[in-house]
Every structure is written in C-alpha cells, then in structure tokens.
C-alpha cells in the first residue's frame, strides 16, 4: 500500500466517521429538540394559565398541540437554532424576528381557529405563525413585503410540507382580494393604523389580531371583531395579568 492509498483510506475512514457522527448528532438533535419543544409548550401553557382571565379563556388544547408539532428550529437561522425552543423572540435576519411562542399561542387562540377557516396573514416572516395555523384551519394565505424573507419562507413551508399555506411577496395593505372574505386575519407586522381594506375583507363574525409594541416586546394584542351586522369592535388584550395600581390584585 503506497502512501497515497494510505492517505485515501484514512481520509475515507475519517469521512465515514464524520458522516456517522453527523447523522448521530442530527438524530440526537432531533430528539433533544422534541424534548425542548415539549418543555416550551408546557411553559406556554403555564404562562397562559397564570395570565388567567386577562385572555378571556384558556389557550385551546388544539393550539398547544400545534405548538408541540411545528418544529420551530426549522424556522430560525442556524445561529439561533440552539435557542429555538426558548420561549422568546429571536432575530431571523433582515431586521425581523420570529415571535415569542407564548405570544404566537395567544394570537392563534384569539383567532378561534376552526378547521374550515380561511385565514389571511400579513407579514409571513419566518413562516412560523402560518405553520402553527396550518394544522388548525383549512387554508392560510400569507403576504410578506421583504423579498428575501418571502422567498425563504415560501421554500421552507414547501419543504416542510405545509401544503395549505400559500405565500406571496407584496403589499399587505390591500389584503388578498381574490381569496376574501377571510374568517380571520392575523397581522404580525406593526403599522400606524389598521388598513381599512383589511377590515373590509374580514367576514362578518370574523376576527383580526394585531400585536402592539416593538419587535422584541409585545405590549398587548389588539383584537378586532366584525359582528354579524358588520359593526367593528375592538379589545386591547394584555398578555399578562397586571393591575396598574398597587393593592388591587
């Protein structure tokens, strides 16, 4: 055996070991991600319980189940993967964030998703919110204004098999006329006002949810409901139980 062959052999052996190692690591990652995800869901459930009646009602089992299924680590950049199941918002590049799982759960819950619902999402971001909704409703339409995010999310959702999510790059202000009216609309991007066309595209009896606050700190959720008569009402819903006066718990 000449030295060249030796080198090749050793190299091949090393490569094999590396590949085996990688696949083992990957399996280990998968199982540890699953465990972390289940811890995350338990944390979200606990927080929702602690928030109590500020939310009106407890987070539905189906929403928590969806949170337990969707692989959040697939929706964050590699550098953030190890934090994927921490219950906090994470930067995903382009100045955007993936929302805190707890807030995603609350928002999804407020939409009162039903398996026959058609939902519009403004601000696809990483695609995580759409993925959570995917298992709870019939169809999700999602619009993103930042081109690389839109393309990445589209590819990701397709790769992960979220077939009932349709995304496009464009202006969310005018909703998605050809698929309107929507049973619910979730706006994940901040705006100075609620676009009137979105209110128009909400079906009577439908709900719209918008998080209020900065990218890393949601202050409260704005819930808009269109009554069967077409009247619009709104609620400011706190994510935590907090009374602004001392001595009034």
């Amino acid at each position, binding site marked *: 055996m000449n030295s060249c062959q030796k080198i090749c052999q050793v190299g091949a052996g090393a490569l094999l070991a590396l590949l085996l190692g990688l696949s083992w690591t990957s399996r280990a990652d998968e199982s540890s991600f699953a465990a972390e995800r289940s811890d995350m869901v338990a944390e979200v459930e606990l*927080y929702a319980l*602690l*928030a109590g009646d*500020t939310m009106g009602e407890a987070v539905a089992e189906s929403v928590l189940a969806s949170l337990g299924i969707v692989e959040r680590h697939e929706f964050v950049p590699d550098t953030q993967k190890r934090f994927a199941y*921490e*219950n*906090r*918002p994470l*930067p995903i*590049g*382009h*100045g*955007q964030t993936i929302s*805190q799982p*707890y*807030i995603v759960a*609350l928002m999804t819950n407020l939409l009162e998703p039903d398996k026959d619902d058609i939902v519009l999402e403004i601000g696809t971001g990483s695609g995580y919110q759409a993925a959570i909704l995917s298992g709870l409703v019939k169809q999700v339409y999602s619009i993103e*204004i*930042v*081109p690389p*995010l839109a393309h990445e999310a589209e590819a990701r959702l397709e790769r992960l098999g979220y077939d009932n999510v349709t995304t496009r*790059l*464009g*202006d969310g*202000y005018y909703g998605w006329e050809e698929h309107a009216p929507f049973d619910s609309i979730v706006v994940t991007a*901040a*705006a*100075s*006002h*609620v*676009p*009137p*066309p979105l*209110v128009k595209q909400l079906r009577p009896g439908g709900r719209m949810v918008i998080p*209020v*606050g*900065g*990218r*890393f*700190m*949601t*202050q*409260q959720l*704005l819930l*808009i409901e269109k009554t069967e008569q077409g009247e*619009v*009402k*709104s*609620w*400011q*819903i*706190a*994510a*935590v139980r*907090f009374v*602004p*006066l*001392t*001595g009034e718990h």
Partner: protein
Amino acid sequence: MTQLRFVLLATFLISSAAIGYEILLMRLLSIVQWHHFAYMIISLALLGYGASGTVIALGRRVLEPRFALVFATSGLLFSVTMVACFAIGQRVPFNALEIVWNPRQLIYLTGIYLVFFVPFFFAASCVGLALTCLKAHISRIYFFDLLGAGIGAAMIVVALFLLSPQNALRLLAVLALSASVLMSPAVPLLIRKRLMLAQGVCVAVLLFGLPQGWLDFRISPFKGLSQALQVIDTKVLAQYSNPLGLVTVVESPTIPFRDAPGLSLNTQSEPPEQLAIFTDADAMSVITRYDGNLESLAYMDDVTAALPYQLLDGPRVLILGAGGGTDVLSALYHGAREIDAVELNPLMRKLVGETYADFAGHLYEDDRVNVHAGEARGFVARQSGHYDLIQIALLDSFSASGSGVQTLNESYLYTIEGVEEYLRHLEPGGMLAITRWLRIPPRDSLKLFATAVEALRRTGVDAPGRQLALIRSWNTSTLLVRNGEFTAQEIGSIREFSRSRSFDTAFYPSMPAGEANRYNILAEPYIFEGATALLSDRAGVFIERYKFDITPATDNRPYFFHYFKWSSLPETFALRKRGGAGLIEWGYLILIATLAQALVAGVVLILVPLLLRKRDAQGGRRARMGSYFFVLGFAFMFVEMAFIQKFILFLSHPLYSVAVVLSGFLVFAGMGSGYSTRLVQRFDGGKYSSVTIVVAAISGITLIYVLLLPELFARFVGLPDALKVSLALFLIAPLAFCMGMPFPIGLNRLAEEAADFIPWAWGLNGFASVVSVSLATLLAIEFGFTAVVLLALGLYISAAALIKSKL
C-alpha cells in the same frame, strides 16, 4: 530637547480632537444605536483619562526619558484607534432591544464600552505625559489642554454642519496625527524614520485608502430606517446631516408609506402616497403628497388629532413640531385661517418647503402658512400674540415610545411650566391639543393629564376638570386643554366626533362612567378612572399607588418619558417572559447598567493598579487626601452635568448645550487653574484658606444661579442664537473660573507635602468623574437638577473642610 511651543500646540490639538471625538461619538452612536449612549460616551472619555493617569503614575520611570516618542506614538495611536474603534465598535452585534431576553447582550455592551475606551486612553496619555514630564510648565500645558478641549467642542459642532459625520471623524484623526507629527523632531533619529513612515501611511490611509464600507453606518436592523429599507423597491432619495441629526428621505413606490396614527377603524379613506423622513435612522415623519385636492386628505378627519378642529371655526393655529408637514396639511384641510409651525431642524423645513415642494404641493408657500426654524418652548415664549389652537404633534416613533428607550430623553415640551406657557398664549376659548401614542396600561396619557391639571391649577383655575377632554383610539390619545370651560355644545361635538369614529371618550367634564371604554375595550376603563382620580383630592395617593411614575414633569425634572418605578420592578421583571416585557422601562435600566459598568471599569482600570503600588502615606492622611480629590471629582461633574441639562432649555438643543457648556467650563476652568497659584500666594496663611474662599465664591454664584436662571432663561430665550451662546458663556465664566481652582491648589499642596500621593489624587478624581456622569442623571431623574447642584455644593463645602488643615 523638545521645544515647549510644539508640546503646547500638540497638547492643544490632542485635546481638541479628544473632545471632538467625544461629541462626535455621541452623534454616531445616536445614529447607529440610540440616544442613551451619550452618557456612556462621557463616562468612557473620563475613564480613559483616569486609566492613563494610573498607567503614567506606575510607568513613569520608563516613560519619562522617552517623552517625545511616547507622546508621538500615543498621538498616532489615538488617530488610528479613533477611526478603527468606530469601525470595530459598530460591528459588535449589540442589540439594545434584546437585552430583556438575552444576557449575552450585556457582554456585547461591555465590549462596545471597552472598544471605545481605547482612543480616549491614548489621547489622555499624551496630555498626562506632558503634564508629568514638563513639571515647570504645568500651568501652561494645563491651560492649553483645557483651551484645546474648549475650542474642540465648539469646532466639532461647526464641522458637523459642513461635513458628514464620517468626514468629521477623518478630520479629527488628522488633527491627532498632526500632534504626533509635531512631536516627531524630538524623537531619536533612528526611530523617527519609522515613526514618520507610520504617520505617512496613516495620512494616506485616512485620506484615500480606508477599505470600502469601513466607516459606513451599520445601523441597528431594528431601527425604523433599516426596517423600511428591507421593503421591496424602497430607496433612499437623499441623505443630509447636521449636528441635529442625520436626515434620510426614503421613497417606497411599490408599497407606499401610509402613516396615519390613530386612524379610525370605521374609516373608508386612506392616506395618499407619502415620502418618509427618518431622523437618526428612526423617528419617522412623512411628507404627504398633496395636489391641491383637499378630498385626498379626507383621512385626516378620521384621526384623534382632528378633534380640536371640530370645536373651532377657522382657527389661528400654532403647530409645535412641523416634521414633514402633516399637521400643517391637516390644519389647512380643516380650514385654519393662519398657521404658524415650528420645526427644530432647519433641514426638515427645507425638505418640505424646497426640495420636495412639488410633492408636498408647495404647502409652505401657502399665504396662510408660516414655518419657523427653532425650538418650540423658546418660540412660544417670545410670541406676543395668541392662538385659537396650539397643537403638539406626534413626532416620536411608536417603537421608541413603546420600548422605553426614551426614558432618558429630557423634554421641556411636556412639563408643567411648558403647558402653563402654552396656556398663556391661547385666546379665550382657545385650546391646547396634545396627541400621544397610547400605551396600555396608560403612562403618557395619564402623566400628560396630571401635568395639565397641575398647570391649570397653577394658573389659578379652581376646577381644572371643566377645561379638560381626552379621547383615544386603539393606539393614540388626544388631550384638549381649553382656555376656559367647555360649553355643552362643545362637549356634544366631542361625543359625536368620537362616537362616529369609534373613538372612546376617556374624559370630558361631567362624563358618566358608563360612557367610558365602549369601542376599544380595555380590561378596565383605566384612563377614565385615572383622570377622575387625578382631579380628585386623592390624586396624590393615586400617583403614589400607580405602578408607573406619572408625576408631572417639571423644568427641573424634565423627564416626561420616565415612567420607571423601582417598587414595580420585581413584579414587572417577573412578568417579562410572560408577555410583560413592555411593562419595563428599559432605558432606565440601561443607565443603571452603564453606572455599574463605570464603577467596575473604574475600580479595575484606575484603582486596582494604584493599589499595587507600595503604600506611601499614613492611613488617616491618605483617607483625607483621597476624599478631597474624590469629592471634587463628583462636585465638578455634578455641576457641569446639571448645567448641560439646564442650558438645553435655553440653547434649544442637547447638542448645542453640551458643546457650549463643555467649552465654557473647560476654557474658564483652565483660566481659573492658571490663576490658582496667585490666589494661593495671596491668601494662604491668612485667616481663610484659598480653597475656602473659592468654595464660598462657587457656593454664592451657584445659589444665585439656582434662583435666577429660570427667570433669566425665560426673559432671554427669544434672543438670536449667537447672543444666547454669548450670554451662556458669560454666565458660565465666573463659576467655571472658580471651579477650576480647588484641584490644582490641592495638587500643589500635595507636591509640597506628599508628592507620592499625586497618582492617587488623579486616579480618585478620575474615578469619581467617571461614575458621576450616570449618577448625576439618575439623581436628576429622581430628585431634579436643583437637588444635584445643591448636592455638588455640599461636596465642595466638605472638600474645603477636608483641606482646611494640612493635608
């Protein structure tokens, strides 16, 4: 032999560049990060001075024989690092907004702190070394140091009008390099060649060869401008810079900007196309396209800010904060007969009135419109006429307001004295209208209400509740303060305006509780309950029990955006991960972090190295000597910081105030220190020591200023800028002159009695200065500026007591 005049000139240049760099860094970091870094920068500069003092004290024997070489090398390194550290510092992936979630951000913050410490260390080494090595000329060197710093502060403000911030940085680097070149002839020939080669390379790199993009701003991706530029097809149309800010105009043709805060959920109309203007990459304001067709502006009637126009017919309007002209347009839409608008930044006026005049429909050329460049409070104060409506526009961005990063911004717009001033300029039946972002649980809205109640009471109104109305949408609130009681008809209009747009009435005279919280439903009718409580005799208890600080801001404590209460922190901190992060005012906690950082860095870099020296004086004396210089460090900085803040109101902008007050204090303190030797010769040995006399003078002048400055400012705030600056310097001169003396007097005494202790004196004084910057702001937020000044006086008096007997 080093020629003295070269040393003096080099010292002058280094000090100019150092203070210029300090001010420029505040600007640069306000652009790439946020405003509260200003405090960190001042403390960094002082830390550099303190630490270099320590190093010189420890390495004196090695450094002294190589004075020219070390000075020239330090100057060169100062020049290189001031550019390099800016490039490196903005590459540290620090994200202020993520601090709540990710403790690693604190490490990044420390990283930034340490990076920016380096250039100041080298600058200070030049000056410190000159003072140490040329003892016979200490007073002249000290004078040139302070003179250079004083002129540098003024120079950088002028430079920022003429140059981009990056080129201003290059200019400062060239100044430092010139100092290094000036010292070269005294360097031994063999090394001189290498030194000159390095200097030549530096000049070439600075002027021509900086790698592409090195100095480009790397703005936080979470600031408004960065966010806007992510959107498809957006582009920067123009970018301008002056000391007041970096102004960027952005166009978004595919997905237009549509800024309409507080737009009713019922509305059918949309804002027309808009251009966005970002100041320091945030605080978005818009220029709205106007083609003369008022119909296109119908949306302007469906925001809470439109309320006053329902009650006033063809009013004479004053708009404080014209921004991109939206409120001027709204006033025209609503039929105002005359509009005065004030805008702080002349660039903004130029953009709307000239550069984009076609887009804005030649808004500012309308006969009814007059736009003035200036500061709002000052403008109102010098008006002799009266208005039917004074409107304070919503100019800060919601994200800034929401994340609590404004906590440390002083604002004289929303103080009790400010509201009193506006009320004095209202016609009978006229109104003050203030629109703010609505935060839940309420902060701004209730604090403003409390401010208005107090201002009305101070103007002699017995029942302020008869003159106040407050409405809200889901994200804005508009407060009306009427000069006189609201009529039944006006109240009817307020109710109808709100009902038809699904806005909630949060307060109006005799409002029934059942009318609150109808359309945009909060867990409780917080604002109505709060407003009612603030008008009742339990207002004090309510403010006390409220979990946010809603005590009205005053000119003495102008922190309207400060809502932080220590007592609420345990609860809000525990809730932070459960959706309660927005309940914490992070800006304040960052100030605390800066203070903690300054303390640790000061101990590690200044005090620990000094401890390593062998003990050289007896315990009791050491304690007293140390205390004297320690106390002086606090006292000087407290007075200086308080004056910077006090003069903001008079000089109209924080940056002008920093430049003028710093220049004034440095130059006149320098003169004072020069004079101190003569004072000592004249008085010491007599009945009163020189320090006692100086401290008595400082106390007298300061007390007079505490009493008279508000009155003086009110009287002269309307003067042209040049006169105001002269008056400010005139006022600062005697105080700073006296304040420049106690330190050199103490040093001279030490030189005679305990020379070995001199490094400790420098170190302790430097350490106190570093810490006192953040501490002064904290104290001002809690107790007001007058308290800070009085505390400084107490410290000066204790210093006099400490030095009274022999050290």
